[in-house]
Structure formats: structure tokens, C-alpha cells
């Protein structure tokens, strides 16, 4: 299991709790296509199954996303990583970290788990090749200690995939 950053270990604030409960209800009523929420009693960590969209490189492949919510969600972005094994993708590191701007600098409190999942699936679907990022080894080495991807200074250079 990937260790989570210190921030996510703090209990959710009241607003965060209410908001997450609403999101969960909304998810259950209207789950995004291609995703399955694995039921747990932990509101602060969601594990979501992603099914590769048909017609893409990842068709029918199943991956797992782990979403950890910080105390002050939704003002702060959730930490979203792929559990092992992470899909081969030019923006996904082998440790599961995802280079996606909305998870970091471009996070907006108006986004939801559902919208983030859809963005990730869209990123997967638009991949031209199954490959790791060029700097995968270096980055993963730097993150050995279970560093959160939120501590990475991401450089979002590719808006095509």
C-alpha cells in the first residue's frame, strides 16, 4: 500500500465530511461509466476500479485508483494515485503517481471525485502508446519514501494526452 502524506491522515473537517458524503450518495445514484467504487467504511480513502474504455489501448483492463482526501477537502485536492500495477501511460509513473494538472495546480473545489475519475479515464483513453514517462526511473527513485505526488512540483507540458 502506498503510504499517504501526512496531510491526508488528519481527520476530515466537517465541511469535507458533508461534502464527501454527498459525493458518495451522488456516486451511488449516478456512478460515472467505467468506474466502480469499492465499498469501505473509510470515507477518507476511496478505492475505485477503473475499466479501460472500449476501443482504447486499455480496453477491458482494470486498474485501481486510490483517492485520499485531505482534511480540508475540497479546498485542497485529493491525492489520487494508481494502486499497483499502474497502467502504462506516458503520464503515469510506475509508482502510480499521475501527472495531471487538475490533481495539483488546477484543482478546483468545484471538481468532484467523479469528475476527476472521468478526467483520468479520458487521459488513459487518449494515450497513443503504452509507455512510461521518460523520467520514470529518476522520479520513482526520488519518491522512494512514499512521498505524496502532491509534494512534487509537476510540470504539465503535454496537453494532448
Amino acid at each position, binding site marked *: 500500500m502506498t503510504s499517504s502524506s501526512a496531510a491526508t491522515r488528519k481527520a476530515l473537517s466537517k*465541511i469535507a465530511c*458533508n*461534502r464527501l458524503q*454527498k*459525493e458518495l450518495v*451522488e456516486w451511488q445514484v449516478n456512478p460515472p461509466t467505467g468506474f466502480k467504487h469499492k465499498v469501505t467504511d473509510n470515507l477518507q480513502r476511496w478505492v475505485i476500479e477503473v475499466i479501460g474504455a472500449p476501443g482504447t489501448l486499455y480496453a477491458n483492463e482494470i486498474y485501481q485508483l486510490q483517492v485520499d482526501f485531505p482534511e*480540508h477537502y*475540497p*479546498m*485542497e*485536492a485529493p491525492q489520487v494515485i494508481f494502486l499497483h500495477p499502474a497502467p502504462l501511460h506516458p503520464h503515469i509513473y510506475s509508482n502510480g503517481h499521475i501527472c495531471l494538472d487538475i490533481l*495539483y*495546480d*488546477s*484543482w*478546483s*473545489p*468545484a471538481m*468532484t471525485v467523479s469528475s476527476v475519475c472521468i478526467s483520468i479515464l479520458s487521459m488513459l483513453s487518449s494515450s497513443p502508446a503504452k509507455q512510461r514517462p521518460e523520467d520514470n526511473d529518476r522520479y520513482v527513485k526520488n519518491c522512494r519514501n512514499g512521498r505524496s505526488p502532491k*509534494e512534487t*512540483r509537476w510540470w504539465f507540458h503535454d496537453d494532448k494526452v
Partner: protein
Amino acid sequence: MDLVAGCKDKLAYFRIKELKDVLTHLGLSKQGKKQDLVDRILAILSEEPGSKLWAKKTAIAKEEVAKLVDDTYRKMQVSGATDLASRGQGASDCSNSKCNGEMDDPPHSDTKVRCPCGSPLETESMIKCEDLKCHVWQHIGCVIISEKPMEGIPQVPDVFYCEICRLSRADPFWVSVAHPLYPVKLLATNVPADGSSPVQGVEKAFQLTRADKDLLAKQEYDVQAWCMLLNDKVLFRMQWPQHADLQVNGLAVRAINRPGSQLLGANGRDDGPIITPFVRDGINKISLSGCDARIFCLGVRIVKRRTVQQILNLIPKDLEGERFEDALARVCRCVGGGTATDNADSDSDLEVVADSFCVNLRCPMSGSRMKVAGRFKPCAHLGCFDLEVFVELNQRSKKWQCPICLKNYSLENIITDPYFNRITSKMRHCSEDITEIEVKPDGSWRVKTKTEAERRDVGELAQWHNPDSTHCVSDGGEIKSKVETVKQIRQEGISEGNAGAGLKLGIRKNRNGFWEVSKPEDVNTFSSGRLQENFEHHEQKVIPMSSSATGSRDGEDQSVNQDAGGNYDFTNGGMELDSLSLNVYSTYGFTDQNLDVPLGNAEIIVLSDSDDDNDILISNGSVYKSNQNDGSATFSVPSPGIADPFPEDPTLVTGGNSCLGLFNANDEYGMPLWSLPSGNQAGPGFQLFNSDVSGALVDLPHGPVNCPLSMNGYTLPPETVMGSTCLIPDSSIGRSDMDVNDGLVDNPLAFGGDPSLQIFLPTGPSDASMHSDMRDQVDVSNGVRSEDWISLRLGGSAASNHGDLVPPTNGLNSREQMPSREDGVDSLAGTASLLPGMNDGRTEKASRQRSDSPFSFPRQKRSVRSRFYLSIDSDSE
């Protein structure tokens, strides 16, 4: 030319600051874009002596200019990027010393200079803080720093805030009380050769007086150390350098929570640590160092804590931040791309009508429905957030950023949205999970409901409301609503009276040649004037009556007005024949361009519309219906709260209002009124006519007659009308427009059923009228059901209201008791000769309505019905 070429190359590296310095030395204007400045210098170099520009300064040779450029260039090279920027203070040296010439912003004699460089000297290149209370001048060279020093020339921003003002906006929860240490720049202590970030730091002393210390004894006061990146893209936030090491009086203070090597993302916010426990009376020492190539400044301030409530109090109250018209314009723009109602074409209207957009009122932050809709004023989008949630979250996150478009603002940009705030406050009592509304391009709205339970929960909110919903409903309160209803009733009564006569006449006309009709003048006006015109008409004729409710509404929203106007008009219409007809139309039009038809208020107009003609005629019927609707609305009003119905839907609401008024009249006044026989009778008859759109026209003539009665009679007639109308409205409501139409038809019958109606019945087919009443009753019940069915707000509220109201009016009640809507309708239809046709129409209409835009469909049906009605009327007549 070598001189020129050489200088040109160097000038290419100059930033605005250097260019300005050179120009200052030359005594030339420093105004203009960077290229202008370069050109100006080059012009001097390449110019022939004696030309006008250089005329005064012939003493200065070109060589001197070139040397000046050279020197400046060399200084840049030496100082290096970071240093250059920080050196700005000193850099201004040259400018300090000399000059006069034409400087662009010469600081005034009373200029307050406060620059992080620490120099209080005025220079030519100064920039003023935008804050109205600040007006501090700073050296451009010190505070305007381009992100990549050697590349771009720092653009002097259009809007510039000094660090103190940026700080106060960064976190409004802390109010600066005093600044023991004004911002000072961190200076690079050594520049590593390997290209890694230079170490920079500053060590300063600041003094706390005994008075300060006394202040700090209070709980809400603290001493805060703060740090800011001078050229931060996010203007209003604190930011500490990487690897920040802060010490106060020798004690280490943790400045940031992020790891020292982590940069602050665009979405991140640093905080200013509270150093109260580390400070003492007298002199204190503070030092900050970090490894960062960018330019920061450090300050110490005494702050006072604000509460969430205090922050909320700083936000302008409703309408203080933005005019309602502006908010409505934004909604119209976002939803419909303009004022759709402007288009008079009936067909397009229908399309437009179907065009309502679903808007979710959930706060993006909390996920719950907004209680107070807040927004950043400069944002162009529709989306809002819950004001209280937003402020509360920002107490900690300090992110004064629009959650929808992610633009960074500050607290002073926050306003409440006058449009959505009215809606959210009206929905305050709705259940949590009802979060969606439908909005039409004209800004009218209703709560979107998916189930019957929800419909019951929201009551009349499920009916279309004028954009300025609050106007009618919320503010008015029941009292106002009652007043309005009374007025409306009177109006209606009058109108009815008028309608009575007029309607009959009109009806007849309708039957034969509604289309052709009747009042060219009116038609013209209608055609020309849309809603507004209608309003005008109303005003002219009706104004006295309607002026209060309708008038105001009309004035407020044009588009909306149409609806409102329509409704009002109806009431007014009673008063004014033309206006009435118009009103009716408007009611039909509510949603759309029906208004135009209304214009036709003259039945003729309706007729005139080709497709609509029939429809229009129908629409006239619909107008009647509208009246009915009004009736229903009125019904609804009584129970739920008259006020609410009004606000809800312009057309429906208005109709509802009028209806309500009628009902109210019935309930309150109505009963007594009933006693008024003669007047009432006349009224009913009129009412019946009124119920029919054409009737409205007819009513006009009658109206006058009734008018005399009006005061007394008005109430009564209205009541009678109310009853009939109400019943009709209910049915109509329940079924939506279609029902309304039927209701209209029924209404006549209903009228017959009512005492007044009965009287009428004689005139018309009494039985038929009775039946119609029955139908109406049924309709009412149906209407309630219909509410459930259709989800029409009016219907729901109306239905409930009707039920309630009806009881008061015995006849009405009985009717209500009648079959369910559909069955009832059918049965009613069956009962009434017209009914069959009506029924068909109704069912069809109902289905259509259910499907989507009841209004549009209803019209047609209505038209059919209206025809029937007309025929019926003719029979009765």
C-alpha cells in the same frame, strides 16, 4: 550608423526600467510602450542635429547618448538578474539625481513613498498603489520585476498594489493594525557559481511599544511575520522562499508547512506564522533566509482576527453589489444568448419556450444547495457558490479564487447574486435534495421536480416564476400578496365585468373572425409593442389597477415583464379591455413571445397570427386560461401563500395571482360577494367570458358595465370569476396549459355552476355551465393531481390551494371533489358538449405538457379549446 546599430542591440536587452532611466537622463518622456521608449532613444541617436525633438538638447551629443546606453547596459550585466531587480532601489539613483523634463508620473509633493528598498526618496519612475486608501508610491525598479529578468521587460501592470495592500487582501481574516516592520527585501548573500539558487536573507529589528503589548494581551490580537514574492502571479497571497529559515529573537519559527524544497504551486497558499509568543517589549530581532532566486520581502505586523460573520458583513448585501438587471442580463445571456422574447414570431416562440435550461443550485464547495448565492462580481459565468461555506472554507485556505473559473480575486470582489439569491431564499424550505431549477432564456424559472413528493414539497415553486421572483412572493409576504390579490381581484372583477361584456363580444368575434378581428389598433400596438408595449397599454389603461403589482414588475423586467405584465394585464385587462386581452396574451406568452400574441390582445391580434391565429384564438382561450390559471394560481396562493405563487411564474404566477386574488376574494371576500347577486351575476357572466380569451375582449365592453359595480361588484365578480377561473385554472394547471384551456372552457361552465355562474348558466347552457363546473371541479382535483402529473408548479400549488380554497366556495369544493383530473377532465369534457373536444385536447395537451413545454403545446390545445369555448360561448350567448 554603427552607433545606432550598437545601441539598438543593447537596447534590446533593456527592461523598461533601464529605458526609463536613460530617457530620464535625456530629459525625454518616459511614457509609452517599451518599443516606444526604444524608438525614442534610437530616434535621438539617428536624428540629424537640429531636428525638433532634439533641438533643446543640442548640448548633448549623440555620443553621450550612446555612452549612457552603454553604461546602463554594463550595469545590467554586472548586477545580474536578481541583483538588478533588487538594486532597483539604488538603480533609481541616476534618475534621482537629475532631471526634470517630462516625467510621466511625477510624484506629488505630498507623495508617500514606501518601498521595500527602504529608500524614502522620490524618483521619476514611481508607481502608485491602486488601493484608494493607500496611495503609496514605490520605485518601479524595486517592485516591478519580470519573471525572467534578462528576457522580458517587466510590464508595468495596469493595476498595481503595494505589498501591504496585497497582504490585506491575501487574508481578510487578519486586519493589519500596525506594521512594526514594513516590508523589506531579502538580499542575496552569495551567488553560487554552480547555478543553484542563491542564498538570500535579511535580518531586521523591530520595536514593539508598551501599547502594542497591551493590545497583544487581547485574545484577538497577534503579531504575524509575513513574506511575499514581489512578482507573484497570484497577487493576493503570502509566499515564503524555498528552504525558508525564520528566526525571531534567536528562536526558530516554522514559516511553512510544505517541504522546504517544494515550490508553492499556483493553487497553493502560504501562511504567515504568528510570532506573538516570541516577541517582547522593545526591540526584537527577526531574520529570514532561504535558497531562492526570486525576490521576496519580509514584514511584521500586528493583526486583529476577524470572524466569519465579520467577513460576511463586509460583503455587500443583496443589490448593493450588483443591480438585479445586471444579474438578469447575465442569466439571459448564459441561458439563452439574449432576450429570446424579443422575437415576436410565434413559431420561434414555441421553440424558445421549449428551451429551458437546467441549473443546479448546488454549491460546488459543499455539495449542498446554496443558501446564499455568492459570486465574484467580475466573473461572466452563471455559476455561484454558497457564500457562507465559501467564506468559512477560506478562513483557513485563504484561497479567494472562484471555484468555477479558478480566477483569483479578493474578498472585495465578492457579491451576492441578486438573481439566484432570490431563488435560493425562496427555496429555503425545500428539502435538501431538490437542487435543480429550470431557467428560461428570459430568466423566468421554476423548481425542477422529479417526483410527486418533491412537487408537493416545493409547492408553487414548481410553477414558473418571474425572474424577479422575490418581488411578488417573498417580499410581499402574505399580506402583500393578499393586497395584490385583492387588487387583482378587483382588477379581475373589473376585467371580468368588462370581459363579461367584452368577452362575449370578443368571443363572438372570435368565433367568426377573431383572426380578422377586431381591433386593428390593438393589434397594431401589439404587433409593434411587445411586452413592453403591452405594459404600456396596461399602464395607460390599467395602470391604476395593476400599477402596483404589475406595474412594478413590468418596469422591472421587460422579458419577465411580459409574463408579469401578462398576468397583471389580465387583472388590468379586466379594467382595460384592450389591456386585458393583451394581458391574456401575455399570460400565454409568458414564457415566450406569446406576448406578442397578447399584444394582439386584441383578439384580433391573435387571429392575425397565422398559425397562432387558431392557436392565438385558442391562445385567447388560453388567455382565458391564463385567467383561469390566474384563478388557479390564486387558489394556490391562498393555501401556500399567495405571495409565493406570484413570484413563481410570471405568467402562471400572475395568472395564479389573479386567480388567487379571485380565490381570496372568494374565500375572504368572495363568500360575501357572492351574496351580491346582480353584480355577481354580471360578474360571473363576465368571468365566464373572461375565462375565455376572446371573452376578455368581449369583457371589455362588459367591463365598463361591470365597472360601476366594480368596487362591490368587482370583488364579487372576481369571486365568481375566481371560482370559475379557479376551477379552470386548476384543471388547466394540473394539465398544464392544456388543462388551463379546458379549464377556460370549463370555466364558463364553472361559472354557471357558481352562483354567479348559475346566473350565467341561464344565459348560456346552464347545465353545460354546471357540467363545466363539475369539470372544473374535477379539473381542480385533477389540477392537483395534474400537479403531480405534470409537475406544474401552478398546478400543484394551485391544486392544493384549490382544494383548500374550494372548500370555502362550496360549489368549487364540490367540483374539486369531482373526479380526478384526467377522469374528471374527460368526464367534464364529456359533460360539456365542448368538453369532448376539450377532453381530447386536454389529454393531448396534458401528454404534451408532461412531455416538455406545456406552454407551447397547451397553446395549440388551448386554441382548440378556445374554439370550443367560443362555440360554447356563442351557444350560451
